[in-house]
């Protein structure tokens, strides 16, 4: 088996899998920020009435699976994606792929992921990793959030590939179809444009007021009511959930805003427009504001500051962030892209 797979650590699992899989088919310029930006990964949504682990349903990134799909397709690369009803067939397909030297992206649940620390093992089914080889009963695993590669036995891998519940992976595997034509700089340049445009749409123009920059504002206003509605303790748990979605392993810090800032800098290398560098700074500012908001939230959930005024400060942070990001995306929408 030609074992040339290169493991690069990433902040976020799907970015990392996308980057490493695309590099494995020869897109050597692919980086995590480019994958995230071309895949229009930056997002915000607060889904009212829905609960995750008893707390608010908040996401700082787009739907699982979309980053890989959009990034590959924008570069003209076909994607193979399969789910399975049978565990045997799922394993057989995986074995055939890696025998032919094809590294494979797998969607997995983290609850039974044996190498994860226990504190991180929730019933979350949209983690991604790459299987790139097999030695005896051990699969060679590249988990992008880890510094080094690891292994899983066939039983352990089957268990996480067939985790159950919301977003059950059903053994899902995916990889770019190997192609003989190389991706050109021009293709990357165009993919950056479509990625930014789609992200402008997602952050500015989704109706309903719960997604994009208006979703951030909506959350800010909600937070101000949490203390009365839920009581200090539960409101603290809700804020902790917000902070975990924003900062926990995989976001690169600041709810993915720093990765997006890095993307705009890298985009500048393909589109020589200095506005990109300026707008990148605005995303750095936004990421820093998210982190300041997290510090305020921590004061509340640690019980140091619990008055209504403290909740108002917390809510106002989000209102302010909403304005900053609205401005940044409006500026992005006015960029004159090179043809």
């Amino acid at each position, binding site marked *: 088996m030609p074992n040339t797979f290169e493991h690069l650590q990433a902040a976020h699992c799907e970015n990392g899998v996308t980057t490493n899989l695309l590099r494995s088919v020869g897109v050597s310029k692919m980086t995590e920020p480019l994958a995230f930006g071309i895949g229009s990964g930056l997002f915000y949504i607060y889904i009212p009435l829905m609960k995750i682990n008893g707390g608010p349903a908040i996401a700082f990134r787009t739907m699982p699976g979309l980053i890989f799909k959009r990034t590959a397709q924008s570069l003209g690369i076909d994607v193979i994606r399969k789910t399975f009803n049978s565990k045997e067939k799922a394993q057989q397909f995986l074995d055939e792929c890696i025998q032919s030297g094809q590294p494979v992206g797998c969607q997995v649940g983290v609850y039974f992921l044996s190498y994860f620390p226990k504190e991180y093992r929730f019933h979350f089914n949209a983690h991604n990793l790459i299987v790139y080889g097999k030695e005896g009963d051990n699969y060679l695993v590249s988990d992008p959030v880890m510094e*080094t590669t690891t292994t899983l036995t066939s039983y352990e891998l089957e268990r996480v590939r067939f985790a159950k519940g919301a977003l059950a992976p059903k053994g899902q595997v995916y990889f770019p179809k190997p192609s003989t034509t190389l991706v050109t700089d021009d293709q990357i340049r165009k993919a950056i444009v479509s990625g930014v445009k789609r992200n402008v749409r997602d952050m500015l123009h989704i109706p309903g007021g719960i997604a994009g920059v208006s979703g951030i504002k909506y959350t800010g206003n909600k937070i101000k009511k949490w203390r009365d509605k839920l009581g200090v303790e539960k409101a603290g748990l809700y804020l902790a959930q917000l902070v975990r979605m924003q900062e926990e392993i995989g976001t690169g810090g600041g709810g993915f805003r720093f990765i997006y*800032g890095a993307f705009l800098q890298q985009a500048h290398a393909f589109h020589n427009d200095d506005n990109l560098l300026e707008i990148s700074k605005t995303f750095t500012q936004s990421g820093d504001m998210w982190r300041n908001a997290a510090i305020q939230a921590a004061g509340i*959930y640690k019980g140091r500051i619990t008055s209504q005024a403290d909740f108002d400060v917390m809510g106002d942070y989000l209102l302010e962030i909403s304005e900053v990001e609205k401005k940044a995306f409006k500026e992005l929408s006015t960029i004159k892209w090179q043809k």
Partner: protein
Amino acid sequence: MKKDETPQDPSGLNNFTKEVCYAVDESGKYVTQLSSGWEVKSDALGITWDDINKKVEAAKNAVLKGELSPIAYYIELRVMDLTIVSAYTGFWKWTIKRHLKPSIFNKLSNSTLQKYTDLFEVSIEQLKNISLNA
């Protein structure tokens, strides 16, 4: 975030991995920097687990008082809910709710119990007697 301000606090990730953060260097250029953790989010995770442990303790007391079957305890201990247990065992949610009643639990066949023991990773003895679960 500035590169040299990337937090390096102790966290649950120690001895597992450091995580990649994106931050700007002195010249304003984005670089990646490894972080061992950040107190703010370790605390967020910490109070989340405190809350889970409280629920486990409450379920344990309810089981010991005979108000609920041991399944209620293991659901909390394994951070599950009815939807997740239903997805893994194949039982309907209302069936699981019935199994939470001690009187009905005590009459369950071994093959039914086995579905739960597989999911909770305990023996039938541990399922029936939660004090055996270390």
